[in-house]
């Protein structure tokens, strides 16, 4: 009996380490960059699938894949924030958006008219004409009506909703690109699967490596936030972005950095997940949901909260799986619902 309790607890810690890592990433993106990133799980999927390819095709050790996937997902996240989210942060129409929308609109109108034989024109010639009209319109609007609202920042609440919607779209884009590249099949590889005995229970070496990396990254991140100049700037920006700017913080850079770091954590978590579990291009959403539950459990935007919450949920999942493996996700939802009713601000929330 005692050993099985210990088994379950250790299994919970192993699972919890992954959850903590995933949730810390989302927490950083939401707590500082204010993006409730629905596409978080897709970065996990990218990390996992990339590792699989690196291992099976190029024979690259998954531990080395961490060093490859981490920076790549970081850069990807950083660029996505610097381009798309940056535009959502400042007030709406930017040069280019109107061009695209207007072109599509005019072209659609043209095609409807063409269907009824009202106009006879080559499709591509029509497209070119639409594009020219749209660019002129865009330019004119930018010079007149939109000039004044340019560069002024939108309210925080507005950004939270637009960025969430955007990340929702991003989820579909990344997922479908992954489908084109990797196809829908569920795949796995075996790496470091030799069993290790802890207190009488057997665990795969790969699971222990996963836990080790999660804790290592958690601690490194903690020291980064509390000891370094940029880390302090991140905390300041989380607390009051406007005043952080007054201190000399380049806010756009720090927000993009946070989004990139969150993406990197997801990417690395993906690498670690692929060592222990099968992966496929469709796996992202499941982890997004778990990340959201953990972040809510730990307290929205609280990074230590996410770390603790991850382990708490891992242990709960492990206990439930011990009795009925299929019910783990159900238990998570149950906890989530209960949490919203009893303590909506989470464990460490303010």
């Amino acid at each position, binding site marked *: 009996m005692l050993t099985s309790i210990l088994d379950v607890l250790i299994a919970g810690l192993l699972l919890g380490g992954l959850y903590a890592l995933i949730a810390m990433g989302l927490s950083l993106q939401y707590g500082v960059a204010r993006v409730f990133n629905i596409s978080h799980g897709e970065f996990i999927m990218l990390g996992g699938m990339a590792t699989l390819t690196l291992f099976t095709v190029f024979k690259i050790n998954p531990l080395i894949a961490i060093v490859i996937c981490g920076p790549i997902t970081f850069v990807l996240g950083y660029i996505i924030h610097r381009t798309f989210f940056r535009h959502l942060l400042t007030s709406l129409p930017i040069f280019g958006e109107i061009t695209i929308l207007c072109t599509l609109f005019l072209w659609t109108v043209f095609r409807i008219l063409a269907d009824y034989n009202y106009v006879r024109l080559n499709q591509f010639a029509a497209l070119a004409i639409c594009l020219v009209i749209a660019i002129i319109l865009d330019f004119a609007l930018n010079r007149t009506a939109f000039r004044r609202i340019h560069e002024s920042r939108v309210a925080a609440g507005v950004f939270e909703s637009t960025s969430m919607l955007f990340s929702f779209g991003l989820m579909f884009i990344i997922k479908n690109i992954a489908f084109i590249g990797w196809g829908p099949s569920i795949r796995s590889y075996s790496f470091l699967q030799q069993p290790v005995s802890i207190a009488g229970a057997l665990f795969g070496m790969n699971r222990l490596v996963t836990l080790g990396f999660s804790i290592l990254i958690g601690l490194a991140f903690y020291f980064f936030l509390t000891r370094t100049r940029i880390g302090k700037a991140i905390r300041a920006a989380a607390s009051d972005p406007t*005043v952080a700017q007054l201190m000399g913080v380049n806010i756009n850079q720090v927000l993009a950095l946070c989004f990139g770091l969150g993406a990197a954590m997801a990417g690395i978590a993906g690498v670690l997940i692929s060592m222990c579990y099968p992966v496929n291009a469709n796996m992202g959403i499941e982890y997004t949901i778990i990340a959201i539950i953990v972040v809510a459990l730990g307290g929205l935007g609280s990074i230590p909260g996410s770390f603790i919450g991850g382990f708490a949920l891992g242990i709960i999942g492990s206990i439930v799986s011990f009795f009925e493996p299929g019910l783990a996700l159900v238990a998570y939802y149950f906890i989530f619902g209960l949490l919203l009713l009893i303590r909506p601000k989470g464990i460490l929330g303010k």
Partner: protein
Amino acid sequence: MLQVKNINVFYGRIQVLWDLCLEVKEGEILALVGANGAGKTTLLNTISGIIRPSSGTISFLGRRIDNLPPHEIVQLGISHIPEGRRLFADMSVLENLEMGAYSRGSWKTRQKTLEEVFHLFPRLRERAGQPARTLSGGEQQMLAMGRGLMSKPKLCLIDEPSNGLAPKLVQEVFQIIRSLREQGITILLVEQNVRQTLEIADRACVLENGRIALEGCGEELLKSEHVRKAYLGL
């Protein structure tokens, strides 16, 4: 030192500042007084780059700054001590002060600057390890001012430093502002506490509905009929 020329500032469709001109001369305390909603804080936010004017220019030491982002304006030597202190509540007193010296240049000399700030505000040294939110109101204002000085500014924009403080502490705050000027820091002071402000200011402007209504040396304004009626209740 700082020239604000014909700026117009909008919040969405609402115009807050109308064709406003202002000049701060090196080494002076320029006070900006006016009722709530007159646009005082907006003016400071525009100077420090948080809000952009839709027209007009702002230049500092001969350089145009109205198109620069806030973090570059700080580097040029303008420090903005915001209304309501706005400390980083969960960070320690020391970390708050370090954030004040975030800009590359001031980060290198932060230890030396820290000693100067601790000399000016001895209470902050005692409380260095505490989270900022555990300080009393007066100490928080000291911290906000200390943080603003950590960037070694040439010009300090101070927004309502006496807000919510006991009269004795208000005296202290004004004393410190005066001592800053003696150290060669130019000050643009926004205050609701009109009488005391006009007493320490070299020059003052009265802001009404986003326009400068009156301008003159502090004593002159204290004697002005309009100011006495509208702001001093005499």
